[in-house]
Each structure stands twice: as C-alpha cells, then as structure tokens.
C-alpha cells in the first residue's frame, strides 16, 4: 500500500453500491482521500443487477457509468474489489482497519480480451444472476463490470482446466497461485454502506418459494427483465420457459409482519409497480394483479402510481396473500387472498408470482467488526458509542436509490467531520 495515501484524514467506505459509491465520490470530490472496499469483483452493488429504476424507468448503468467515470478521473479514490473488512480498531481520526482480499486469480495485466473464457469448460452458478444461470469458470462478472477484468472461479483452481485457462492468456494475467491476503489501512473515519440483502422468501413457507418454480422474488424479476440477464430480458415461466400472460405481485412478502420483518421495506410497492410495467411492455395482452396492504408511493412517486394504476391491464387488490399453491401438472401457481374490500376469498391462477420480498440490512447478517449499536432489525443507529463510523443507505433504514444517495452524501460529511475533529 502506498503509505502516503494512508492517514488520519482519509476515509474508508465499505461497500460500493449506490450508497458506497456516492459516499466515496462525494467525499473525494470535496478533496478527501478515500478507500473503497467491495466484496464482489466489481463495483456497483445491487443496483448493477437492476433492470430499471422507478419512476423514470431509466437504466441503472447510466448513472453507474457516470460514477465510474468520476472514479476514473479522481486520483483521490482507491478501491479494492473482492475485499472485506475484518477488523476495526482505534477511534475517530485514527482507525486501524484490517482488510481481507480474496484471490481473483487474475491480475492487473488482464485486458478483458476473453481468451481465458474461451478456454474454460466448467460452468458455475452466476451469482450476478442470483444463480438463475451459469457462467464459465473464467468470467467477466457482467459486460459493464468495472473494473473490466476477468475472474477465475475458485471451483476450478488446482485442476487441469485452470492450467488451460492460464495457458490461454497471452498477457500472463492469470495467476493461479494468488492467495487470500490481508492488509491494513489507517483511516480517520469509516462509512459503512454494505447495503441490503433480500429477505429469504423460503422463510414464508406458505408462499412456496423455492418449491414452486413459478414463484420468484422481486430481485430475480429484475434479472429476468434485464437485457443482460439469464433470459436476455424475456420474462418467462421458470418451470417451462413459457410465455407469461398473467403475473401476480404479492406485496409485503415478509415485510410489515412481526413473524418476519416488522418494518416496512419502503421500496417494494414502487418496485412492483415498476415491474408491472415490464410485464405490460413485453406483451400487449399480459395482465398484472397486485395484492397489497397499502400502496406507499411517497411524494412525487404518487404520479408513477397513478400512471400504473390507470393501466387497464393492472388490477390492484387490497388484501394480503395467504397461500400460494402449484398445479404440479402445469406448474401454474394459484394465489389465495381475502379481498378486503369485499371480504371475499379470491383464488386466482397465474403464470408467475413475484414476491415483493423486503430489504434486510446487511448488518443484520454480518455486523460491523467494531463496537456498534443497532436496532432489533439490525439497522445501524444514528447515535453510536464509537464516533467516526457512520452507517449510510440501507444499513441505516430501508431506502430507495435517491434516498440512498442523499443519505450517503450526508454520511460522507459526517465522516469528513470525524476526520476534522482531531
């Protein structure tokens, strides 16, 4: 590590999704040195896997492209992919951070030419697509990946195939001897922006997620709709690849439920309204039903709600879905729900049911390796016993993209203040 870069006035940003990227860039453009640590082999986090943003229905890669360019043009930012923070010691203005770097098996000589991929035979689950497809054991995480650099999957290390992959590279960029390595950073403050994970829908047993192939989660729906997804953007039945004519969205799948997530995840209503537009756009005959408790479209998002609501092919039904069953013969899935406006029990069959699974803060799964305070759901609290470590984005509360950026910008300022306080 370049020691000149270390120091009390530098800021560590953990996570490089919308919040992490924003915090890092906003601090760096104000003149502060920033390290960014990302556990995936590429920057961009969860938004990189989304198809479109509400309410504009614009592609996330557009904003990411701008942000990546800001990074490329800013010498104050240094980032590490496939890296995670193991240990934090010290105090505001003087933190010692231990970072663990996982081997990529590809070094900085990689040009992205793709010869290694051609030499690979084994296929491994593609985590970028939530396992909905497979990739070669030497792969580019996705075509917009930044850094634009291949990865060799650990599954083939030690095999002849790995040797063939190495031999295929004309640039000596494949390094099969790479080991996990640890290094230390000295920083003045830390922004923790590791984002969220989708609530595990298998825990809601009566929805049959993981059992019924045509019951999917909203994050999977984003991949299915994406041109760079497993189906090249075509939303199809998972059971047989058939066309989807009727799609149901089940809101609050886990959220607003004391047995699962007591809080409201804040974004799922709008995400489902958005995903409804994917279905309508793909097929001019397709129909969408949305089962909801309340539609929470704050502020100007109301316009988007009004727009989708006015579509003839979208039906909104107030009622929490009870059970989802599958016809084993056809794979079609039936949603049972009590329509609260009529009191009647509805049973309707669909090609695809999308569970609007909520957001779980990453900090509920993996705590920050420091003395930190959380609420019962695992969200990082604003007031902390240790100064100088600031939560940003969805680790602090469930928020949408714009609010993440705002929150991350605010967190960056808090981090800057913590470095100034010395």
């Amino acid at each position, binding site marked *: 590590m370049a020691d000149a870069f270390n120091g009390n006035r530098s800021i560590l940003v953990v996570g490089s999704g919308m919040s992490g990227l924003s915090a890092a860039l906003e601090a760096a453009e104000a003149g502060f040195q920033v390290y960014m640590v990302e556990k995936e082999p590429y920057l961009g986090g969860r938004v990189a896997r989304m198809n479109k943003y509400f309410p504009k229905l614009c592609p996330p890669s*557009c*904003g990411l492209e701008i942000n990546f360019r800001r990074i490329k043009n800013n010498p104050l930012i240094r980032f590490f992919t496939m890296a995670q923070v193991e240990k934090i010691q010290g105090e505001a203005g003087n933190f010692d951070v231990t970072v663990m770097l996982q081997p990529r098996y590809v070094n900085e000589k990689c*040009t992205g*030419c793709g010869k290694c991929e051609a030499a690979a035979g084994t296929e491994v689950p593609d985590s970028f697509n939530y396992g909905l497809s497979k990739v070669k054991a030497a792969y580019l995480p996705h075509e917009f990946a930044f850094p634009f650099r291949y990865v060799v999957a650990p599954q083939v290390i030690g095999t002849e195939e790995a040797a063939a992959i190495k031999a295929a590279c004309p*640039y000596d960029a494949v390094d099969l001897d790479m080991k996990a390595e640890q290094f230390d950073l000295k920083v003045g403050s830390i922004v923790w922006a590791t984002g969220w994970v989708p609530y595990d829908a298998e825990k809601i047993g009566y929805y049959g997620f993981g059992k019924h192939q045509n019951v999917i989660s909203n994050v999977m729906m984003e991949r299915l709709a994406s041109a760079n997804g497993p189906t090249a953007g075509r939303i199809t039945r998972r059971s047989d690849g058939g066309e989807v004519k009727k799609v149901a969205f089940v809101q609050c799948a886990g959220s607003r439920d004391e047995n699962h997530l007591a809080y409201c995840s804040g974004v799922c209503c709008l995400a489902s309204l958005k995903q409804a537009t994917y279905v309508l756009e793909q097929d001019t005959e397709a129909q969408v039903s949305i089962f909801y408790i309340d539609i929470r479209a*704050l502020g100007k998002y109301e316009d988007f709600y009004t727009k989708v609501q006015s579509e003839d092919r979208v039906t909104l039904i107030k009622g929490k879905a009870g059970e989802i069953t599958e016809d084993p013969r056809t794979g079609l899935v039936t949603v049972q729900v009590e329509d609260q406006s009529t009191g009647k029990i509805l049973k309707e069959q669909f090609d695809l049911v999308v569970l609007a699974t909520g957001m779980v803060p990453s900090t509920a799964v993996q705590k920050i390796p420091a003395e930190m305070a959380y609420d019962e759901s695992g969200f990082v609290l604003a007031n902390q016993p240790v100064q100088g470590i600031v939560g940003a984005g969805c680790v602090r509360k469930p928020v949408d993209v714009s*609010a993440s950026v705002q929150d991350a910008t605010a967190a*960056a300022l808090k981090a800057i203040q913590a470095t100034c306080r010395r």
Partner: protein
Amino acid sequence: METKMGVYICTGCGLGDALDMDALAKVATGEYKAPICRQHAFLCSSEGVGQIKSDFESEGVNALVIAACSPRVMTDVFDFGPDKIMERVNLREQVVWSHPANDEDTQMMAEDQLRMGLTKTAEMQPLEPFMAENLSKRILVVGGGLAGMTAANEAAKAGYEVVLVEKSDQLGGYLKEVYKLAPSQPPYEELCESGLDKLAQEVNSQPGVTVYTNATIAEISGAPGLFDVKIQQNGGEANERAGAIIMATGSVPYDASKLESLGYGKHADVVAAPQLEAMFKAGSVTRPSNGQPVNSAAFVLCAGSRDAEHLPYCSAACCVESLKQAKYFKEANPRTAVYIFYKDIRANGNYELFYKQLQKDGVFFVRGTVTGVEDDGSGGLVVAADDMLTRSPILSESVELVVLATGMVPTSALGEPFKEQAAKPGEEDAAVPTDTILASNILNLQYRQGPELPALKYGYPDSHFVCFPYESRRTGIYPAGSVRAPMDYARAVDDATGAALKAIQCVEMVSQGKALHPRAGDTSYPEFFMQRCTQCKRCTEECPFGAINEDEKANPLPNPTRCRRCGVCMGACPERIISFKNYSVGMIGNMIKNIEVPEEDEEKPRILVLACENDAYPALDMAGVRRLSYNAWVRFIPVRCLGSMNLVWIADALSKGIDGILLLGCKHGDDYQCHFIKGSELANIRMTKIQETLNRLVLESDRVRLDQVSISEYRRIPKILDAFATRIQEMDPNPYKGF
C-alpha cells in the same frame, strides 16, 4: 504549445490479427507525418507504457494518440497527466470486436478512426483551468428552519464559514410550532422532543456561522465561488460574498380554506393539522366552537394531497404526522376516541412500528375517500366517506373535532411564472423549451434566465435524476428539505446534511478551476471569440444551467464557474465562436473532413455517427464486448452531449460526400435521461432545421437522423446502425462526393 506527436498502436487483444497494422501505421507516418509511431503487442503492459514514457523523455513527445481499446477502459494505465495531450482511438470494442477480421471495410474503418484521432490531437491545446479571483468558500444558507439550521451547522462542523439568512426574528422555522416529533429511535413507538432549542443554540454559537434574522435576500448576482449576496435586514442592507448556496426555505401547509368541501370554514370544529399542533404545543386542546375539551376526533388524511384538484402529489409526511397527533390524544387521554380516514397509510420503514403501536392504542383506521364533513345536529360532526373500492358510503360516529391533514406546498411554488422577454417583431420565437421559473422571491438571482431555480414539477426545484438527487439546474445552488421535495423531518435532516457537503464540494472544486457534476474535475471551459458574436442570444437561451448572462447589447457574458462543460452553447452558436481547448466546432469539423470518402462507384457509403459519450458511446462499446456486429460504413465521433452538436458538422459531412449522419443521444421528453437536461432535445430541434435545408438542397431529409438509445440498449445498436445503412443504400449516393 509546440507539439510533438507520438502514435502508439496496440496489436494485442486480437487487433494485430484482424487489421493490417503496417498500413495503419502508414496512415500516421505518411498522411499525417507523425514523427513517432510505434506498435506494441501489449501496450497497456508496463513495458508498453514504459515505452511511451521514455518517448516523453528522449523524443520530447507531448501529444499522443493511443490506438487500442476503448477510452473507457485502462484509464489509469494511460493517464499521463494534464500536461500531455492525449486522444484514444477505439480500435478494439468499436472496430475489431464488431467487424470481421482482415476485411477491407474493417481496415478502412480503423484507418478513418485513426485519422480522426490524429486530427483531433493535432488541434487540441493543453488545458488551463479557469481561476477566478476573490473566490469565496463561504456557504450561504437561505432559510433557518430545520433543514437550514442543519445545513449551516453541519457545514460549520466541517470547518466552513456559513451565512444563514432567516426571514423571521428567530431560527426554527416550522419547528417552532411543533409540539413533538414522531419516533426516530427504537423501539419506534414513543414520541420524541423536537430538539429545536439545542440545535438553534448550537447554530448560534458556531464561530463560523453568521446569522441574519429578520432578513431576506434582496439579490444574488455572480456565480459559484463568486456569489454576491445583498441581504435586506430591518430596512438596512448587508453584503456578503459566498461560494455556494443552500436553499432551505421549506414549505407551507396547503391552504385549508380551499378545502371547504371537507367542512373547513363551515364548521368551527374542523381544523387543519397545524392548528391542532399549536393547541398541543400551547397545552390547551379544546373545541373551537365551545372551548370544551375534545373527547373524540377524526383525522382526514390526504386533505388536499393526492387530489388532482388540489395537490396531485403525496405530501409524504402527513400520514406519520397524523399518527403522531393521534398519539398526542391517546397520551393525554387513552379514552379519547380517535378515527383516521385514509387512502393508504404511508408509514414507511420503521414508522410501521409506530403505526402498529397506534393500532394497539385503539385508534380506528377507516379506509375511504372522505366526501364531506357534516354537522350531526347534536353539536358533533360526522365524516362521510366512500369506501375506495366498493364505493359504498361510510359514516363516522359523531366526533367533536375533525383534523384535516393538509399537505405541503414548497415556498418555491409561491410566485407567478417568470416571463422572459417576448420575441421582438421580426425575431424568431425561441423553439427551445423554456424552464418553468416561478418568481417566488427567495433567491432573486440576477440571472438572465430568471430569478429562481427552475421548477421540475409542482413548483419543486428538484433534481430529475434518480442517481443524482442534488442536481438542481443552477450550478452551486442546492435546494434541501421540504422545498426540494415533500419530506418528513428526519429526511430533511439527511437532505440538508448532504446538501452541505455538495456546497462544500462546489467551493472546493471551483477554487481549483474544476467543473462540478457530471463532468466533475474537468478543467476545460468554453471560451468566446467575441469579435464575431452577432448577439443572436442562442447560447444564453439554450444553456441548460443558465450559465450565460447578457449585457445590454445582448452580448453573452459567460460565467465559467456556473458552466458544466456540456458544450450546448458551442452547439447552439451559428457563428462557431465558442470553443474548448480540447473540444471545438472546428476540431470536430476537421475530424469529419478527414474521413476518407470513397468514390461513388466503389459503392461504399459513409455514415457519420455522433454518439453521446455518456450513454450511446458506452452502448457501442457493450455491443463490441458482446461481439455484436454491424456494418463497417459507420464512423464514430463521441460528443460531450448531443446538445453540443453544431449544425455546421452536418454541412461539413454532407459537403464531404458522407451519405448519412446518425445522431445517437439520450432519451428526451418528460422522463429525459440526458445528463445535461435538454441536450438531446436541443439536438433534435436543431436537426429538424437541417432537414428543411436538406429538402431545399434536394437531398433526402432522412439522410440525417436522431435515435434515442439508452446505455443498456446495446442489443439495439446493430439494428439501429444497420437499418440506417439500409435506408442510406436505398438512396442515391451523396452527389457532393468528390467535390
């Protein structure tokens, strides 16, 4: 500057296998007399880069062309510092990866792309940042409510001086009227104190904060780093210089007198939420009609909000504010009957837990659209509602007080539309869509384009960008809090803290002569060759950021620190007097003129593609990464924004014999994706003009075409390019070939 050019051609990544590299090198050394031209099998390696660096030392190379991969990759490797002129020619993604190897047309495409890179490099000048004098790093905060106080306090805590201007006699804004706040800490069930006194005290005692109360902004002139602020205070005037501005003037409750249909003004016991707040704050909650205590109350949510006749938007805070007020009643007396009539309860995030708590407290939630509030004849009121889905009418129990949860209206919406001067007789009406600017008397900017921030919708000067919520359309001026968008207190605090950092960033970047978002760090800026200006005003009218003022003779007065470097002014100028050192009308025009156009009988049409570098250009790269192929007639020139396209380029291309011109830009319209707001739309307007000209020249008007393409639509790229090539081939060749 004396330049010595070095041309570096990479033969790696299959380029050397697909192209005749010696022929390519001959273009550089023969046609362009490049003194140094080297090929390298792995240019991005340390040896390759080392070779380039040693040429700086030994050969005095200071201008270089890297003909290799896309300029979007290997940026760190090929970064030779600001004193070197550099252009990257994209042979990999856009030529070799998308076209057949060892093919005459692929080779011609590579050679033309190189010619254009060589031409541009020969014309570029080293950048010198715009350094203004007497720059200020102080931050002006307008409005001393929660958002304004927070912004001032947070900026001061980071070591920046702040000038805070508040129109009333003390800080606090709307918070002064507030009794308590909704929960923000676990277990998210109990109300919390507003903390106003502590915050106001903190702001007042910050050494770097100058507070003006009883003060308003008379006038702001200048630009980021150089704002001159006239403050009116108690009849006197004070002057301050500031570098950036945070506009935090908040919102006002929707005027309840417009809600007569909900009984306001008809029944004394129908009150608006702020009145109830004041009663609790004063410690005396009684029925206005008779002064008796309130034993039952009904809240009507969305009173004015989510209503096409009043406020079409959701005011975002009223659901939780009403829950909070319901809690006041339940805390004061758990037996008070409380009804809440709602469409949706929007208690996002952890507010959900508060909502649950109120259900446990026994508040009755009734879902329906309230149709009226009537006297029940016994001194009480009944609320009539339609169930939202069944349309069956519901009537409430008799209640003693009805509370209308009135929404919020931003202070920026309180003003008449600012009208630009109408076109004088004989002048063309501006085809450029004008911004909505409401004369709300908040900032009183001395900007030619109008005195306030342009409104996005409903009078909110919000950003249109999902990823960049702080991007107002006036550089260095950041709206924050409920003036920017409807929001609750917690979000306003975050918003204001973030805005404080944006303001800090602005003053820091400006002090180094650097551009702000989205070309953050760019040190180029437009220079005006005024002798040739004809005062046509197009630059001032078309600049999306209001960067250019005018003197009394209509000469443009550029403000480089307001400028975002998109080049829209350069595209607009019919006299071509606006140039950047590394991007100018002449430079791009010469690139076009250096494309080799084969004779008509060779049947090789040529198509110029001007591609927005933010979205279309990366999409072209992605097509290459995916090895999608398309015709090799196309020649690509990236542009900063399609709005920087100058019509003379079209003329240059047509007179050169190029058969078709395709403009690839971002989506325009209501959900525009253009990072410079209207660049793509402006290009479209300009293009319709050229089409008229084409028709006059008896050239087919569809030789020039604009397509909107988003960055993720790279799969459409081959279709767009090939469909256009097909259309061009259906026409006769451009008759100007060979002239």
